[in-house]
């Protein structure tokens, strides 16, 4: 039986096992070990939440602290990936992408195409995202849709410890640039995680829960919100099928279309802002490819079109919750043929 581990442990273990397997794998980022140049403990941090703690002890100089210079070190990770290393660079918060975005979207993402298929850029950028920790507008965003927009990038948003480990191992072995998005409210989530290394392929959505009445397609932390809503709705006799995208690029269109063909009703749930996010993307795709299967209009449940507020009262209102999902599911039931 698989042993239980947290999302955070699963990520740490994936990094350790890949570093063990392949010595071209290196980890870099601000304070990923910590304590560099100080009188105190080395490996004092392991990142602000301790996710990479312990790697330095095992792999020494392959765990590299960086100055606060995201543009330079994220770019260096990209460059190193074209030159024989497999760097896993930590962009502490996804919100900091603004500081280094050029190296990601104009450089890493485009090499292969621009260079006529000659380049491989096996870089992973691990980054934490999402609201819920009262971290306010510049430390709480769900910016994966921005990366998903860019051809050449793969974008991963694990919802469980099992997926986090398998998808991170896949990300490291993958020969394309991967943005690996970790929801900061999930780090302490526990689940079954095999001790052995395993890779989970990209582009395969997970059917988290089966049901015939309404499909809820979602990702990341919202998978758990959807499941909570689905459990409650089951009591009212409405059975929801919950689909976790796992990766937004590539996106498993087949599974989405199949679930919609099965239920005929769709709620898309996304913690990102409502414009140009995964919910709009999926809704558009379903309208185009499975319109005839739909028994009624699609509903989107998302955060509002505002920055993430600081005050707890506001942030709680901001984040989509199970009640909002239940309401949307009921509305879809009512408005369908």
């Amino acid at each position, binding site marked *: 039986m698989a042993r239980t581990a947290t999302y955070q442990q699963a990520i740490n273990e994936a990094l350790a096992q890949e570093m063990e397997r392949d010595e071209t794998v290196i980890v870099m980022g601000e304070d990923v070990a910590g304590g560099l140049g100080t009188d105190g403990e080395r490996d004092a941090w392991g990142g602000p939440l301790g996710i990479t703690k312990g790697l330095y002890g095992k792999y020494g100089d392959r765990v590299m602290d960086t100055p606060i210079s995201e543009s330079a070190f994220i770019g260096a990770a990209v460059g190193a990936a074209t030159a024989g290393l497999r760097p896993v660079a930590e962009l502490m918060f996804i919100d900091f992408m603004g500081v280094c975005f050029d190296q990601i979207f104009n450089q890493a993402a485009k090499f292969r195409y621009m260079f006529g298929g000659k380049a491989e850029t096996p870089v992973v950028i691990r980054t934490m995202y999402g609201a819920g920790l009262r971290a306010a507008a510049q430390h709480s965003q769900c910016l994966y849709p921005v990366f998903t927009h860019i051809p050449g990038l793969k974008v991963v948003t694990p919802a469980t410890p099992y997926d986090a480990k398998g998808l991170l191992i896949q990300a490291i072995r993958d020969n394309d640039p991967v943005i690996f998005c970790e929801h900061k409210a999930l780090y302490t989530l526990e689940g079954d995680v095999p001790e052995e290394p395993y890779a*989970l392929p990209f582009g*395969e959505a997970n059917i988290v829960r089966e049901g015939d009445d309404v499909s809820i397609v979602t990702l990341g932390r919202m998978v758990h919100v959807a499941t909570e809503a689905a459990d409650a709705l089951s009591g009212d006799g409405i059975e929801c099928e919950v689909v976790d995208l796992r990766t937004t690029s590539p996106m498993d269109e087949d599974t989405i279309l199949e679930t919609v063909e099965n239920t005929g009703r769709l709620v898309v749930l996304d913690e990102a802002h409502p414009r140009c996010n995964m919910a709009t993307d999926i809704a558009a795709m379903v309208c185009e490819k499975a319109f005839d299967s739909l028994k009624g209009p699609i509903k989107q449940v998302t955060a509002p079109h505002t920055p993430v507020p600081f005050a707890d009262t506001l942030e709680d209102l901001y984040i989509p919750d199970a009640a909002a999902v239940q309401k949307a599911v009921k509305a879809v039931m009512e408005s369908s043929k």
Partner: protein
Amino acid sequence: MSEGIRPICMPKWGLSMKEGKVAGWLVDEGDALAPGDEVIDIETEKISSAVEAADAGVLRRHVAQEGDVLPVGGLLGIVADEGVADGDIDAFVTDFQANFVPPEDDDEDSGPATETVEVAGRNIRYLTKGEGGTPAILIHGFGGDLNNWLFNHDALAARRVVHALDLPGHGSSAKDVGDGSVGFFADIVTGFADALGIEQAHLVGHSMGGAIALAVARAAPARVASITLIGSAGLGSDIDGDYLEGFIAAERRKDLKPHVEKLFSDPALVTRQLVNDLLAFKRIDGVTAALGTIREAFAPGGAQAEVMRDVAGSVPTLVIWGAGDRIIPASHADGLPDGVDCTVLDSQGHMVQMEAATEVNRLIDERLG
């Protein structure tokens, strides 16, 4: 506990089962039950099956209704003798419900835990149930693991100690499968018996596990009390090579599901969770390579490498087959040496020990004595 009142509770099938859903009652209130009668259908995320009556009596009460979800150990119904008063049953139910504590999620004591033993330098995971008697060892087939005995292990363990192991390359055992041959696995099983201090055992093998049991009986007949071969390999050269190849190659749910459906007579049993669990196993580093090695040694070019029909009958032998087995044809059960007990079950498939567990358990239990 009140005289003559016996609860039927939510069973625990497999290590990870926490709750089950009532898919439907198979007997009405007031019906008489014989031991082994199927009483109620239960669905879990992984699997669906029927709960059997443990003792004779009258089904007096449907406590849980169709659609209810109950934790393991939750009260499904009541069996009692005819003479027991309704009031006593009411009191029993009230009392049971008031005192019932569902097992904690992380409660390690909620069932027997697997153990690990080292055999030929490899960690082998196994699960032991029951005690006393001549031990039995359950050997799963290609791509399986000890959970393949979900519906058999408890029943067989009622009268003896029963060990189910994960073969190398499978389940949570080491992924090094040596040359992948049946002989290699036979040595592992013998080594496993050595490690547990088992002098002589009943070997129960499914599919490739049957061929392994045959190979142990051939190499070390004194160590084998009997062999039970279920949908077994080793009795003919035919095997669905496409299945083996497809099972190994499939990387995604959609690709794997059709192959797994071939195993069952009722494809509805191939739940999402079952396929996910198989994928989770296949995705572990080294598994695909191990399965490939096994296939090359065990069924190169789509035909079984080793046929051991002459071994059948050299020790007490029971053969069970599903007539509709699509992986290894039931025709291999024809014309086996004298003294081999053979039962072919109608409209059953390769996973006959799961789909017709009651019947299979009865046959084995009788045989092992």
